[in-house]
């Protein structure tokens, strides 16, 4: 039987949240379907561990469900969800040391050329390893900026800091990554 929330592609996240606040489980499932994969992807790259990422993302969505009656749409739902996921990852990081993912997984849409694919995998693995050595907040800033493609302003909202704070984190992260990944030479 079709439920009213089956028109999932047209309903705004904020409207779905209003239904979730009334205890509508179907609306909650629709939100999960929309945002789970990206939340998992971000958590895996921040934590460097699949089992931890799975645990963190499940907890993040349960928090969405519990907090829905008190949620005020002052920011986009996705910003709020990112904040929950990032905060849980950062708190998790304080307890468990980072273990970088191998190449952050296989691409979902592999390149046709096998050699290029191998090269790309090696490059991703190198980058994942280097990102794994960054302090947790620098890592989160890098992933929100590059992986999620967010502006410094939105990254600052998610991380609970200022734009200047994000810039400082990114400057330190880029310097550390450059030192680790890019061989220095006399002339570029």
């Amino acid at each position, binding site marked *: 039987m079709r439920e009213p929330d089956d028109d999932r592609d047209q309903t705004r996240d904020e409207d779905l949240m209003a239904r979730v606040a009334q205890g509508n489980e179907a609306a909650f499932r629709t939100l999960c379907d929309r945002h789970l994969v990206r*939340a998992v992807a971000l958590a895996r790259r921040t934590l460097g561990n699949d089992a931890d990422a799975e645990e963190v993302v499940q907890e993040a969505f349960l928090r969405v469900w519990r907090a829905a009656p*008190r949620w005020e749409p002052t920011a986009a739902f996705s910003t709020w969800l990112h904040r929950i996921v990032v905060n849980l990852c950062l708190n998790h990081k304080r307890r468990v040391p980072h273990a970088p993912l191998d190449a*952050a997984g296989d691409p979902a849409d592999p390149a046709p050329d096998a050699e290029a694919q191998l090269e790309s995998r090696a490059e991703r693995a190198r980058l994942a390893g280097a990102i794994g050595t960054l302090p947790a907040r620098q890592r989160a800033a890098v992933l929100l900026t590059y992986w999620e493609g967010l502006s410094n302003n939105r990254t600052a909202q998610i991380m609970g800091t200022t734009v200047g704070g994000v810039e400082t984190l990114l400057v330190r992260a880029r*310097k550390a*990554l450059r030192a680790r990944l890019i061989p220095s030479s*006399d002339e570029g």
Partner: protein
Amino acid sequence: MKAPIPALSLSHLEDALALHGPDLAAWPEDLRMGAQALMAADPAARALHGQAMELERLLTTALDGQPTAEDEAIARRVATRLRAAPLPTQPRPWRERAENWLAALGLRPAWPGVAALAGMAMLGFLLGGHLVEMGGVYGFSLSSPAPTRLADADVSGIMFDPDPLAENGL
């Protein structure tokens, strides 16, 4: 006369590359001019710029925001777990809880605002009655009888000396 190009050190260039990225077109103009002058003169500055470009390329191509097959597999597992177990109870705001409690008793107000006003009026009535009773205990009364004769009343507050001019009939 052209403004002098601001001098830039290698360390300053490194900071600027880490802050603004390797695309000099996006930099503030004076900083860009300083960087271009330094890079034209110093091979080490050109090397720094080349390294920053390589890092940016790596970050933008490897962190492409495309979920992988593993991401999708884990997301499916989380979705299955979220569907399998009953969702926890949602904590409700106190107002909603109060309304639900009243509704359970069959007393849910049709207009919460009017009900709140009536509640405040009832509270005021009860408090007023309580104050009257307290007055009897502590020696004051809001219902003490008014003086029956003018001689018993204290009228000092309204007495005044006669106007001397009026007294002389002027």
